[in-house]
């Protein structure tokens, strides 16, 4: 049986520069793919291609054996994106932000208050996101991962701006997700400290 998430011969050209060519991997439930590379080597571009925000110049991404470009709607139900930009409205409170968020994708059935308590932002629940610190804003964005029920997590630099406890938290969230049979593709300079199968992809 083929892997759940599979990338074949991906190449991306940005302007007249070849970012990378013929990148491929196969990921099964419970596995983590760590994407490494210098700044500007195309880590974010690779994640954007995997999310379907951008098309690769060649190659394909398959979910459950089917080309994701053919069944985009179905693929989107299965993925969660955590990027550089928080995706939170600065003028709204975390509570209001998450309320909108929950109407956009399938939910895990977890209560928002419980999720926010775990993320340590229950205290600032009704303040505008604008006045929160950068780390707290990242924590609000993390709530999306816990409230959603998608098996595939695409994380772009999930450890940035977080304090040590926050980094531990992200580490725990990812390893829990993988142990429950989820998949995770992560662009980061550090790996996940857990007993889970990890693959590494280094972009030149």
């Amino acid at each position: 049986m083929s892997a759940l998430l599979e990338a074949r011969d991906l190449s991306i050209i940005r302007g007249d520069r070849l970012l990378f060519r013929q990148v491929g991997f196969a990921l099964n439930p419970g596995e983590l793919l760590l994407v490494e590379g210098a700044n500007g080597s195309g880590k974010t571009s690779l994640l954007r291609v995997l999310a379907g925000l951008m098309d690769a110049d060649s190659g394909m991404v398959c979910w459950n054996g089917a080309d994701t470009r053919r069944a985009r709607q179905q693929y989107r139900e299965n993925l969660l994106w955590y990027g550089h930009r928080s995706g939170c409205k600065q003028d709204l409170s975390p509570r209001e932000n998450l309320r909108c968020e929950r109407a956009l994708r399938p939910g895990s059935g977890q209560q928002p208050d419980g999720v926010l308590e775990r993320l340590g932002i229950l205290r600032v629940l009704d303040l505008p996101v604008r006045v929160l610190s950068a780390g707290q804003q990242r924590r609000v964005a993390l709530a999306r991962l816990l409230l959603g029920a998608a098996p595939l997590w695409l994380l772009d630099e999930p450890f940035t701006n977080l304090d040590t406890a926050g980094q531990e938290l992200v580490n725990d969230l990812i390893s829990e997700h993988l142990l429950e049979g989820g998949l995770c593709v992560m662009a980061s300079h550090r790996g996940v400290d857990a007993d889970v199968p990890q693959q590494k992809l280094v972009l030149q």
Partner: protein
Amino acid sequence: MTPPLSMPGLWQGFAAVLRRDLLLAWKRPGDVLNPLVFFAIVSTLFPLAIGPDAEQLRVIGPGVVWVAALLATMLSLNSLFSNDFEDGSLEQMLLSPQPLPLLVLAKSTAHWLLSGLPLVLAAPVIGMSFNLPVSTQMAMPVTLLLGTISLSLIGSVGAALTVGLHRGNALLSLLILPLAMPVLIFGARSSALSAAGDSIAAGAYFLGAYCMLSLTLAPFATAAALRISNE
């Protein structure tokens, strides 16, 4: 592996985006008042500049109000998607399993409620400063109602195409104006005709048809444009 649980309904997705945009406007009332203030200032400056000749004002009145309404709508379009683009909510909407045209329609609805509807309601008051006859005062909100809905919808296509561009504002106007011309011509003309005692039915039918056309096509065009400009 746990299968994806209950997917929220279409209406929930539409309502959530609409609610969020209205809530944002509520927290920043300045952004909403801007187009309305612009509309009121431009259309009240004309009588002051042209002079107190009642007959002349009555002739140019409908045209001036319509041009002011068109420009006021343009003014507010630029921020339709650019804020979402900057804070990443646009990415999240693009990646949502909810159909993008539906979410876009929710944004257009919010935009119209916040920028178009106030103009429709303010038009009769503005009309008084042009000494417009009662028939035109009645006709103006009707044509503006249909017209501003079309403008919000057509404008969303342009806003989607120019999102992420640094100086997208001028380009946005260039893209939108040709499509907005029929609305302006029929809107202003039928308001003016009503001053002469003619029926506005023909103009209103055209504006209604244009509105329906935008309503059915614009959300899809906007969704496609957003995907392209986010590549």
